[in-house]
């Protein structure tokens, strides 16, 4: 079987938090959940989104770390900060373009998603992707994802002028080859859509 990769499709997320609960069952950080699950704007929508570490090829978190505490394994997985080194400065927390690292005040250490290294390093699925009921988080082969999804996986991003390549892929429509995050959407929904696309009262009104 060929190498399995991690794929995210935020739009599939149903906010059930199975990933959050399962993340705390991973042995490298059991009892502490590392994954983020964002409720985008509950007043306006039921949209939610999970965020695992994207495992950048040249991780910004490691570059801004004063203690040289963030290391990547040979197979490309960016690990939690090394416990003896991390000086708890939070540079990584506020610099990561994906908002991934967590500063654990209790332990005075940065911890983050390590793709369940105890599992993925021996060929098992990371906990979150193993349980995710919606397939928003999927750990499978490139062939399988291409066979089963309409979209395509990409792993190139830009944040302003910063180009980032990640180990983890995101599912996008076929004509997209890179996700450009240079427009900060202050409003909770994309500008292409009506102002309040999920307001039930408007749905009942507009068309009557």
């Amino acid at each position, binding site marked *: 079987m060929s190498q399995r990769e991690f794929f995210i499709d935020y*739009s*599939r*997320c*149903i*906010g*059930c*938090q*199975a990933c*959050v*609960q*399962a993340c*705390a*069952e991973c*042995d490298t950080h*059991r*009892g502490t959940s590392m994954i983020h699950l964002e409720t985008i704007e*509950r*007043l*306006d*929508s*039921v*949209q*939610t989104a999970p965020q695992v570490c994207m495992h950048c090829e040249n991780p910004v978190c490691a570059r801004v770390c004063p203690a040289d505490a963030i290391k990547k394994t040979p197979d490309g997985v960016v690990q939690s900060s090394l416990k003896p080194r991390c000086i708890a400065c939070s540079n990584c927390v506020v610099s990561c373009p994906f908002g991934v690292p967590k500063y654990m005040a209790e332990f005075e250490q940065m911890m983050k998603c390590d793709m369940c290294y105890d599992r993925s390093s021996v060929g098992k*699925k990371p*906990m979150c992707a*193993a*349980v*995710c*009921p*919606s*397939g928003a988080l999927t750990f499978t082969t490139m062939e399988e994802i291409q066979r*089963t*999804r*309409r979209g395509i996986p990409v792993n190139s991003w830009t944040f302003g002028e910063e180009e980032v390549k990640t180990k983890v892929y995101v599912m996008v429509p076929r004509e997209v080859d890179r996700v450009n995050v240079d427009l900060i959407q202050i409003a909770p929904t994309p500008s292409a859509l009506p102002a*309040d696309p*999920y*307001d*039930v*009262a*408007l*749905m*009942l009104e507009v*068309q*009557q």
Partner: protein
Amino acid sequence: MAKLSDTIPNLVQHFGPTLHSIPSGGWTRNPQDEKLVKTHCCFCGQQCGIQLRVNNNKVVGFEPWETFPFNKGKLCPKGVKRYMQDEHPDRLKMPLQRIEGRGFEPLAWEPAMQRVVSEIRRIQERYGKDAFAVLTGASLTNEKAYLMGKFARVALQTANIDYNGRLCMVSAGAASKKIFGIDRSANPWSDIPKAKVILIAGANVAETAPITTDYLWQARENGAKLIILDPRMTPIARNADLFIPVRPGGDMAIFNGMLHIMIERGWIDREFIAQHTSGFDAVAETVRKYTPDFAAKIAGVPADMIVKVAELWGPAPTSFLLHARGIEHHSKGVDNCIAAINLVVASGRIGREGCGYAMITGQGNGQGGREQGQKCDQLPGSRDISNPEHRKYIAGVWGVPEESIPQKGLSAVPLVEAIHDGRIKGLISICFNPAVSLPDGNFVREALSKLEFYVNIDFFLSESGRYADIVLPGSLMEEDEGTTTNVEGRVILHRKAVSPPGEAREDWKILCDLAGLLGHKERFSYASPKEIFEELRVASKGGTSDYYGMSWERIDENNGMFWPCPEPGHPGTPRLYEGGKFGHPDGKAHFMPVEWRPSAEMPDAEYPIILTTGRVVSHFLSGTQTRRIGALMDQYPQPRCEMHPRLAEQLGVSDGGFVKVESRRGQIVVRALVVKTIRPDTVFVPYHWPLDRSANNCTIRAIDPVSNIPEFKICAVRISKTDQPTDEIAILGVEAGGIR
């Protein structure tokens, strides 16, 4: 007397709910000490495969079971954390007896059982056999469900046995039986991704059947259109192609309106209707008046939505219809389901690949639990208790005279009403927490406190158990073995992972011992649940839900088997109605015309708002299990009243503020959750919490005339802003019914 024997805060202090947050043995673990037990989740009708990690007779964690075909390792948060109910501090490990004014005290098994038997005898001798009732549950294994039915009819000889599936699947079951002739989802879930149009009515799939999500998204990847009917925009609805925010109770108008347009535009399969169905003309006649405008008025949505949904559904090449409690929990629940099924049959898209119909089962063994004869009107094999042939067959299997089997008894709600008015004096209950789960909670709790004798079998002291005279410590799913039947009709095997702790016993042993003490030892002398299954299989032979050809070994080898499976070599039946062959004796589907009627209680000037109730993803039913698991409580700690900002503004309520929700029957105080994703005329409160946080304090004791399902989905309330309550219940932990 079964009145509360101590104050609620004292009972909570001794018996919980208490939050359990750290697994047995701590967070670090050494896999070398563990074994993996392949079994299934206990927390909904999908019955996902899961592997439990067991160390030294303790469940210490889980591992996804990726090769189980239904869920392929996927789990919802309840599945992930279900292992935390083991080694729980609240676990009952000794029989308890009620001591007036002092709560409960431990008691040895022998005197506990003697007391139960003598009370049963006393009540039945004094008031008649039927004065002792049985309330049982749809989360029990098939073997236990079968045993409960047999226990009631043979050992107690009471007509009054019913189960909490009465709050769940009975409307869907009755409708399916009426039209198709069989009460089961028609297709395996693997047909869902093959359908081009999927209509989901009244099912918050993301929270109540999360594993089904991937099947839906997979269908979308394959090009399917998704239609959702729900008063709330649920997470699935957000990505639907058409979301119809229907007014609670208005679904039937949409179904009839759709059929009206389908007939008008020729989107019905006339050939299929002619060959494989009967009664279509009457239906066509009924839907004639359901023009889009007429239907729209009832459904409370714009008429063009009804046109659009018909345009999507009508000409579809393949389609799948799913529904759940949203359309079933009504005093017209059966008719709602019939209207939905009419759409399926009229399209002729049933019984083939990618074409089908399913009801989304809620409770753990919601499907199997209603087949084995623990319903008031049923005998094993989905047999009819009033049918002489059926009675005779089962009497033969049980080795009892046919006339000794009681006739049809009371269903859950009338049964509790009979307790309230003194016709029923004694009760044994298992796997049922009516104090939280039945409508009109104040009435129900009052009824429980009127019982002369109440024995409760449970693993935790539930809110209902507090009213018991004797509590017998039973078993969790992982402490016993047996089969359940999942949402698809797939019979699967639950393995025993650990043995019951302390002096707790497997439920089936408790029942067999009780039956023995009541003088029926020879008919309840099973050595194991497997022996019960062997009898169940024979009892089901020739019935609708025929398990005769199954064995535990075959179930295990095949990752589950679909009934009917009439012969030992039979492969089982994943897809029903292939070739247009339906379950009625004439082989046809029987159309039934249904007419919309108002709900039992419509909003009025005094109580102007519709209250609808339902579930959240991190809790299961009455919460007696999930409110004890720390991580699940963290996820959703207390009920909130969802309301639209327009309504909130009218009421002067802000997000997070305290509101009093009042109906003619009772009230609750909860925090408001102000969201635009709900209809402005409707509020939603989840029902998993007890006492002053129990949504069922407000709901109405109205039932469907056919299925007897309560009308949980609509009652009239008024809402007002209030202050944070500070009474003795309010200051309890949120898991016990407090508020923060």
